[in-house]
């Protein structure tokens, strides 16, 4: 399985980690909630869990808990700008539907 970042996403993550001053990488995950079933989690990682699956992409460590991994396989995280709005976006091949806001999805 694979989960990755785009170059742009990796650059931004590195910048935020530098600014924060500490942290091993970032956690990508999903949890049930939201208007369309599942919602993404995107957090800094200070302490990893032993069961985490760890990927590296452009020098950034990605921590994924095994339960989330099945929903995220093949996902690429990008950093995009839309007008004045900017932030991270998940391109997830597993998703079948998405709420209008893109913050939650169904598989």
């Amino acid at each position, binding site marked *: 399985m694979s989960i990755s970042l785009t170059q742009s996403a990796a650059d931004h993550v590195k910048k935020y980690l530098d600014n924060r001053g500490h942290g091993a990488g970032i956690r990508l995950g999903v949890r049930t909630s939201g208007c369309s079933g599942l919602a*993404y989690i995107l957090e800094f990682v200070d*302490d990893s869990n032993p069961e985490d699956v760890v990927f590296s992409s452009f020098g950034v460590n990605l921590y994924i808990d095994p339960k989330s991994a099945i929903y995220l396989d093949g996902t690429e995280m990008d950093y995009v700008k839309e007008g*004045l709005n900017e*932030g991270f976006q998940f391109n997830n091949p597993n998703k079948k539907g998405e709420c209008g*806001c*893109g913050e939650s999805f169904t598989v």
Partner: protein
Amino acid sequence: MALLQIAEPGQSIAPHQHKHAVGIDLGTTNSLVATVRSGQSEVITNTEGQATVPSVVRFLDGKELVVGVDALRNAEIDPENTVTSVKRMIGRSLDDINTAELPYQFTRDNPKAPRIQTRSGKKSPVEVSAEILKVLYRRSVESLGEDIEGAVITVPAYFDDAQRQATKDAAHLAGINVLRLLSEPTAAAVAYGLDKQAEGVHVVYDLGGGTFDVSVLLFSKGVFEVLATGGDTALGGDDFDSLIAHWLKEQMGSPELDSAQWRSLLDLARNAKETLTEQEKVNLNYSCGGLQWSGALTVETFNILVTPLIKQTLRSCRKVMLDAKIGADEIEDLVLVGGSTRSPVVSSIVGDFFECEPLCSINPDHVVALGAALQADALIGNRREDEILLLDVTPLSLGLELMGGLVEKLIPRNSTIPVTRAQEFTTYKDGQTALALHIVQGEREMVEDCRSLAQFTLRGIPPMVAGAAKIRVTFQVDADGLLSVSAKEINSGVEAHVEVKPSYGLDETEVTKMLQESFDFARQDSEQRSLREQQVEAGRILESIKGALLVDGTRLLCNRERAEIDTKINQLEESMQGGDLHAVKRGCDELNAATENFAAKRMDSSISDALSGQRVDDL
């Protein structure tokens, strides 16, 4: 679609629950807005990537107006209708404003609240400032979405009560929920992360377009405390420009200049100043209204011209160090803020004075907004882990006029805020039934040398012999630095009470009227907007109180109290479903009243915990 930001561990929030807040630097020359994304403070730019908006508003025919670059571009051809540097006028009376140097027609009907006569009517500085704030806020909404919790707006530390109140009114007029007014130097120190460093004393030297501020801050034990603040509300980079322009005029042989020619000369001066931050010499060509001149300005001449102004700022620096009881050798960091500190002569003279290598790694034009955004983010609860507390101070002493024109200071300058101070006064004549109170701000001993904030009369004192009445006057300064005063006669059970909010000459009804006029919407829209705001407010109260009940409801409340609060919660939740603005408002008020005792008990409990345990020592 909404894009994601990186959260702190364990603090991912459910979709649609993101909380955003912004920091706004409402500057004399330029204004800008910033926010925190993925833990990092960033300025919000427009689609062309521009961060700053020139603080310029041009009034056009009808109700049209333009703000920013487009307005600035026309300042020369239409000076009477193009308002620049409005920050120098906000909260000021006609006497305080240097009207001779300005191209505007001021209305003189109310000298305490001057307005500028423009082609689209009389405009108060509050209204002009509100237009700038609207542009920034609109930009924030486009970038972050509609659900912005509010804004921290920065003011010079040296701003007095009237100027702060006026700034807050401008934000109100622009439809912005003000989380806090924050001193610019404090904001800058936060942006540099000085609040995360080891304990120490820091100095922030802020030379902006129109104001100069210097603050001494102490960071220790998670508290960032302003020890003293000082400065000059009428000194800034604009004065550099003016000095250079006067020098240029001399070089031209001192011709008579009309307002457009003078404005053009000021622009030339500003450009020269900016070029000289990187070059040794600048060639100048002036051409305006038939007048032509060319010549050059060297950095040496520039330095000689502006050094007296910089020396003037050092006087304020000495005073503020005196107040803070700090010597130059105790200072850890010197932070430079404001575009004018880009001139090498400024950083060199100031660095020498404080015996410090100045910090200037963050863009001095952005640093204040960036810090304000960090504080806004903390205030709405997004930064739980490294929570720090900012303790600000009153910049000027607050007092009352006594017999003979003397001032009795109730709250001395550099008092930590919020602060409440009460003092008892008495009557000086037999049978006296009223007492006039005159509230002033300033350091001098005589009333005429201080700034008058408000006057009111306490009536209904029962007739007594002179000196028998006990009149308790209470000054209260809130966390935004705003003062309210109340007076009460306490004798043989008789009480009289009056309250006044000092203003810059606009009364409450005028503000309300301006607010109504300012709504671009039809009346119905504005009602819907009020309803929506009230519903958001209700949601906030409910969330807060339910959270508190979850933690302390069982421990601190008896069944009866709990039942009463639950009833009010249900009532408010019900009224929120309906569309009746007044019902929601009433529901909020009633729930607040019903939980007053609960809130007091919770505060009591956390203070008692701190007192009884080791917690005070641990903190």
